[in-house]
């Protein structure tokens, strides 16, 4: 409906002298139109096929897309029991051994083809097993979340605090 209103308005009342400078038009187009600014926003995310996969040395850089995948694997899992096992392992690693142990657990997880459904052999640089590379501070942040006792009151999942694997249910057991 408003399309018609707008067209009527431009047809009947507005004359357009096109008196902008070339720079103004270019900046206007970049900032307000669907061209280059839209390209900036047109970034894929969320599916493993969009990941570039490992580099030529078999190293997978954990970036935004891989973090999104990690979230989905752990919290919207196909195999809930195995997701639960990984959360347990991450918790234990973060509490008892530190950041490098968390990295090791994540390394196993990212290479668990049956759990993730992702085969790194299907990428431009095919590797049966990848090693992980994290931006500075990212791994420490993940570890801090996992071991933070203030984050446990809604666990294991936000839908409820009932553990679906036969584990002790008391909160003191940090059941994931």
């Amino acid at each position: 409906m408003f399309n018609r209103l707008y067209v009527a308005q431009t047809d009947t009342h507005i004359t357009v002298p096109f008196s902008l400078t070339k720079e103004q038009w270019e900046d206007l187009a970049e900032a307000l139109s669907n061209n280059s600014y839209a390209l900036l926003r047109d970034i894929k995310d969320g599916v493993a096929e969009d990941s570039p996969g490992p580099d030529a040395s078999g190293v997978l850089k954990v970036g935004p897309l891989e973090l999104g995948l990690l979230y989905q694997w752990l919290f919207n899992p196909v195999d809930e029991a195995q997701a639960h096992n990984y959360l347990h392992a991450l918790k234990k690693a973060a509490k008892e051994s530190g950041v490098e142990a968390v990295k090791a657990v994540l390394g196993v997880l990212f290479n668990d083809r049956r759990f993730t459904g992702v085969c790194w052999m299907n990428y431009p640089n095919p590797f049966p097993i990848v090693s992980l590379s994290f931006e500075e501070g990212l791994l420490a942040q993940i570890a801090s979340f996992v071991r933070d006792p203030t984050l446990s009151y809604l666990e294991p999942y936000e839908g409820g605090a009932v553990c679906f694997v036969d584990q002790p249910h008391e909160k003191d057991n940090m059941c994931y």
Partner: protein
Amino acid sequence: MGPSDLEYAVTLDALPTDLQPFAKELPFHLGLTAHPEGGWEDYSALAPFQRLPAYAAERSGPALAPEFQARYLRAHHRGGFFGLLIDRLEDGQVPVRPEWPRLRQALFDQWLQSLTEATGNEALATQALHAAIEDWIDAVATERALRTRRRLSVAQYARLVSQKVSWLGTSAFCLLLAHGDPARLPVFRRAFDLLLLSSQCLDDALDADEDTRLHGIGFPEALGHPPRGLLRTAPGVARLGATLAREGGFHELGTWLAERARTLDESQSGKSSLQAEMSALALVAAVTQLYGGPAVTNP
């Protein structure tokens, strides 16, 4: 009475006489306030939303003359009256009334006129309004499609939020184009987009149940994340906006966004979960990739 309501009093006077009694209670008719005498301030509480051109006017050289700032602020408010009207009408949140078409046309005319007066350039004002309305039409189509598709990527969500209310930024964008440094506009718009996105993450998290009831799906579910994850994304996105704003020399906007991030973090302290934090980490990382930023981690 705040600046929006003061400006609306002037707007009212310029409307056709027979529309004025109905238009006087427009915020109430649009459901923006619970009382017929309520104003626009009841709805747009965040300072940058109330006076965005003032944030865009910040610069290292001589300040923009107050009379120019006042003109852009008038155009900003009038864009807000019009934008909120079309958004509420489209959303089906208000009953059908015979006054709507004429009022919508009148508010559009006032917006265009005030932006033309501010910029001194009818071509710029026309093109800017055209871009904002095209954005809004695209966003409405995306929202409708979402109800069928039921999936939304972070990039699609960020774009939807940016487009749906780009009219709110139009006057500030034009200030930079006509009376500022046009080269600073892209970074200002990115920071503004992040302000919008942060606010929308909060709203969409809190409205998830209502959206599901009204439309069959809420944004958290469409994104594949929990509402609390979206809630925890809001401060991270505001913090990213603060960084970009400061890098672009918009220090007042940067300071406001940083304070907003801190307030949101404090208000959510002790109410989060591992799932929510991991969700927010992934969402903020995706937004950072989208808009550019220093790192995916929080400071």
